[in-house]
């Protein structure tokens, strides 16, 4: 009885709390969220997202094409060397040819001077600007980030990259975009210095895939996802091997234990 009355005494307080919450909801008071200044990208069905799924090599190949012809004019990729592309999306000969088309500053030579030579497999992707200051000076004060690890460096990963590249829209009512910036709801703050870079037919793919904006964005996102995690395919393969091996070992050890113990578990001790 005493317990019941204690509970009874508390009930109005609980009801009052619930009432206050209900009132807040009913009056439609504004709920302010921390993510209000950026649109979070949806989850796209990437073909490499599954636990055992590998990267689409053809997509990486097309993505490199997009990077080279569109992104590379502003963005460096200084952690990816030409040799990294070998056997991923290109043959050794193809990559050698691509590297040789570039000119690399090297030195010193026998006379102690620096000289330029054609690129080699071991060279990293050529950078568009000599340093950060040059990059900012050429881009109205904004620094185009290095893209080697960009998929790991941004919340949402490749979903974010795809959404950002295809997500240039008109600004909402009441927002005036500063001169030199562009409205993109996926970018934190909504105003990004990079202009829309991908347009239908912007590149030509050597496998004759129609180069629509979405296709190019998907391929370059896959390429950047690979660049940020080149060990991705090996990692998943190794994970499967280890899980399978240890799974079998567990079964074998379980059987061995039961087998060894069967003698002791089934023996009968008789005292006379």
């Amino acid at each position: 009885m005493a317990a019941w009355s204690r509970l009874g005494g508390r009930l109005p307080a609980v009801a009052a709390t619930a009432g206050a919450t209900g009132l807040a909801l009913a009056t439609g008071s504004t709920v302010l969220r921390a993510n209000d200044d950026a649109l979070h990208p949806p989850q796209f069905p990437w073909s490499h997202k599954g636990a055992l799924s590998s990267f689409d090599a053809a997509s990486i190949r097309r993505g490199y094409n997009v990077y080279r012809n569109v992104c590379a004019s502003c963005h460096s990729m200084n952690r990816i060397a030409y040799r990294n592309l070998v056997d991923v999306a290109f043959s050794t000969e193809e990559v050698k040819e691509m590297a040789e088309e570039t000119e690399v500053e090297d030195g010193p030579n026998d006379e102690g001077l620096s000289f330029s030579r054609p690129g080699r497999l071991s060279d990293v992707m050529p950078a568009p600007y000599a340093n950060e200051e040059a990059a900012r000076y050429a881009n109205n004060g904004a620094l185009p980030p290095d893209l080697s690890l960009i998929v790991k460096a941004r919340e949402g990963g490749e979903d974010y990259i795809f959404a950002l590249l295809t997500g240039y829209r008109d600004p909402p009512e009441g927002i005036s975009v500063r001169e030199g910036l562009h409205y993109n709801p996926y970018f934190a703050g909504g105003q990004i210095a990079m202009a829309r870079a991908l347009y239908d037919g912007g590149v030509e793919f050597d496998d004759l895939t129609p180069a629509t904006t979405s296709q190019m964005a998907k391929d370059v996102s896959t390429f950047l996802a690979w660049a940020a995690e080149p060990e991705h395919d090996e990692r998943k393969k190794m994970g499967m091997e280890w899980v399978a091996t240890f799974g079998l070992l567990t079964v074998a050890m379980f059987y061995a234990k039961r087998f060894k113990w069967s003698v002791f578990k089934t023996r009968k001790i008789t005292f006379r």
Partner: protein
Amino acid sequence: MDDDPVDTKPTIEEACKPGCSQRWADYEACIKRVAASGDEEAHCTGQYLDFWKCVDVCAAKKIFAPLK
């Protein structure tokens, strides 16, 4: 190829918009509210983002289907 290929993403998003008409109505209501208040700082980013979030969720699975 003479003709530039045409992207399917805008079409897919357009088809998703009717399902988000409530969000769009909220956005338009906000525009009216802001215009009526005369507050120059006020904007409708929240409603605008809610609308596009709704469209995105609807379109995300369909956008990749026609792509290689």
